[in-house]
Structures are given as C-alpha cells and as structure tokens.
C-alpha cells in the first residue's frame, strides 16, 4: 500500500471532519494503528481544524461550565462553601427576633397607655371646666343671696306680710319696701304657679278711698328660682295686693282673683 498516496487522497481530512461512512472510518482506524505516519497526519489535520474553529469562537464564559455541571448535577467538592455552625446562627437570629418583638410590643403598649392617658386628661379637663362653671354659678347665687339678705336686713325696710284672701287662704306673700330707693322686694314663694294664659299682677293700694295702682305683672314668675322680685314703687302705698289676671294684665284688679292682700303698718 502506498501510504503517501493514501494520505494525499484527502480521505484523512474527510475522516476528521466526519464525512466518511462507518466502514471507511473503521478502515482509517486500522491503518492509523499500523502506520504511525497516518496517525501523525490525522493528528496534524485535527490540530489545524481545531485551531481554525477556535479562531472564530466568541469568548466562552466560565459560567457556562458551571451551568452544565449544575444541569448534570455534579458534586462541586472544590467549590463547597463553608457554612457557619447552624445552632449558633439560629440562636443569634432568634434572640434578635425575640428582642425585636419585645421592643415592638413594648412600643405598642406605651403608645396605647399614652392614648389612654391623653383621653383621661381630656375628660378631666372637661370635668374641671364643668366644676369651675358650677363654682362660678354658686358664687353668683351666693352673691345674689347675700345681696338679698342685706336688703332685707336694712333698717329702713318695711316688711308687709300679705295674707291669703277668700278661697286662697293657703296663699301668702311678703313685701319688703325700701322707701329710700323707691322699690319693693316681693317674696312670692307662697303663691302657686300661674296657670296657662294667666299672670300674677301686683297692686299698690290706697285705702280711703280704695284706689289700686298697678305695679306691673310678674311675667317670669313660673321660671324664677327664688320667687323674689324687685319692683319699682313710687307710690305712697297703704296696702299691697296680688291678683291673678289674664295674660298681659288688667287695668283694674279682678277682685274674685285677689289671692293675697296686706296692709302697710303705720309707723
């Protein structure tokens, strides 16, 4: 066999690039084993072809091998990552979480406490305000009553008791007349409330002849608390009387409705 002619035929190039039949491949293989020159030729052809292909190759990233190894589930003995002792890591982690939880819960509790306290303070403020108002009102009432007491104790005051008349014997009233300032204080606690559409009217009377002069109606009788009314009186009154009149008052007293009457004691 002419080895050189065999080599020059070009069959070995086709052998390396994979164009031969199975039978031809077997043949080349046998010849390579027998003739080192043929093997050498094949190795050189292969080397040139590898180099040519490498020449047109893009960069082959190192991650590619790792991806292939991952896919094939290779053990990566040399790439093993040192792991921390697990219990220790966990212990720290748990402690951290526990601490965070405690602090979190504490914060929530404090927040809640704070809200409760704020709400309580707010309630207290309201209550304070109410109490202050009560005190103010009491002070005012006290002042009014002290004033009244002073008036009644005045040396110049003339006290006139008014007794119940006719069918109204249960009724009574008192007039405190201060001649110095031309006013009377009528204490009408002994009178019932004025019915709907009616009003109490106060009269100043002179007795000879009997002449009534209206001192006015007590429009706020039903709503007044202490039933003491300050009324101006410039008359030389000899007696005081109170009648129940239709709302708006009357020109002259309706004698059937004369509830109380009292005569001024002559000094």
């Amino acid at each position, binding site marked *: 066999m002419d080895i050189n002619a065999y080599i020059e*035929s070009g069959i070995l*190039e086709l052998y390396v690039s994979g*164009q031969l039949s199975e039978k031809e*491949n077997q043949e080349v293989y046998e010849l390579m084993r027998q003739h080192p020159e043929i093997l050498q030729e094949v190795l050189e*052809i292969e080397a040139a072809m590898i180099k040519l292909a*490498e*020449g047109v190759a893009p960069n*082959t*990233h190192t991650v590619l091998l790792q*991806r292939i190894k991952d896919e094939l589930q290779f053990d990566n003995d040399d790439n093993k990552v040192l792991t921390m002792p697990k219990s220790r890591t966990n212990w720290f982690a748990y402690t951290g979480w526990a601490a965070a939880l405690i602090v979190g819960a504490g914060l929530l509790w404090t927040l809640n406490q704070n809200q409760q306290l704020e709400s309580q303070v707010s309630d207290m403020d309201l209550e304070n305000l109410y109490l202050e108002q009560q005190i103010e009102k009491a002070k005012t009432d006290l002042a009014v009553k002290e004033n009244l007491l002073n008036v009644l104790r005045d040396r110049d005051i003339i006290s006139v008791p008014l007794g119940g008349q006719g069918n109204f014997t249960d009724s009574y009233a008192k007039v405190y007349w201060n001649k110095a300032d031309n006013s009377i204080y009528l204490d009408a606690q002994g009178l019932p409330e004025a019915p709907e559409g009616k009003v109490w009217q106060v009269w100043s009377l002179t007795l000879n002849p009997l002449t009534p002069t209206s001192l006015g109606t007590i429009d706020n009788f039903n709503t007044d608390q202490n039933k003491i009314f300050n009324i101006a009186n410039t008359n030389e009154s000899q007696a005081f009387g109170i009648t129940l009149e239709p709302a708006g008052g009357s020109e002259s007293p309706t004698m059937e409705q004369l509830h109380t009457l009292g005569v001024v004691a002559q000094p």
Partner: protein
Amino acid sequence: MQLETLISQFQNKDEKAFEQLYHMYKESMHGVIYNIVRDHDIAEEVMQDVFIKAWNKASTYNSSKGRFFTWLLNIARNAAIDKTRSKAFKNSGKNLNAEFFVDILETSDNLNTKTDAIGVKGFVKKLAKTCIEVIELLYFKGYTQKEASETLDMPLGTIKTRNRNCIKELRHMLLE
C-alpha cells in the same frame, strides 16, 4: 495524560475527566456552533446542550468509529443546525445562507481574545475563495462530499483533493 485514558475515564462518568475534555474542546466547539447560529446567546445555549448530550451519550463513543473530536463535532454541528431549523430561530429573521466562517473574522470584535485569532485572521484571509467555500461546507456545515459538489458545482473527486490542499495550506499557516 493520554487522550485515550481521559476519554475512557469520561466514559466511566468521571466528572474531572469531563471537565478536562470540556476545556480541551470548548473553544473549537463554540467556534463551530457560533459559525452556524451567529448569535452569542443561542451559541451558549447550544454549547450547553452539546456537552450535556456528550455526557449522557458518552458510552456510545467508540474510537474505532472515529476521532473523539469528530464525534463531538458531529454532536455540535447537528445541535446547531437543529437550532437554526427551530421555529423560534426562523422567526428571528436570520439569513445564514451566504455567510462563511471568514465573515466572522471580518467582525473580529466578536472573537475570542485568548486564542491567536488575529493570526488566524491574517492566514485565513490568504486562503483562496474556493478553499474557504470547501472548508465551510465540509467542516463547518458538515455537508457530505456529494452535497458539497452539487452546491459548488464541482466534480466529486475535485472536492476531496481541493479540501486536502486547502487544509494542508491551513496547516502550514497555523501550525508552523
């Protein structure tokens, strides 16, 4: 270590042997695959498929049937060509018909910086156009002699000797 020993370890599912073989052939396989698919991401995808397939089919290799490089080359070419026939690849609008491996060298910014690609580029440019065509079809595209002769409108016997002479020329350029 002898290549035969390494290959038989690889066939016995030795992971280290697989890695060594990977490093020996990754560049050349990547070049062949990239020349067919002309897309970096797709080429890496095919690379992955090829080496996984090689691992899984390791037992089917038999040195009496051909070189280990040739066995791997066949897997790589087939996988890359299958990829270009996939619907997704066709929809990407790539037209690979008129492209030769030398076109890659023209746009050398794509190239591997580790190998002496610049030297390869200089040599390959000196190759005759007919050499480039023959090498492209027989080696990079895996055409049979008959297919290549029809494509290039060249007698069957001429293909074989031209291929021989072209690779001989390449050997002088690259290996000496």
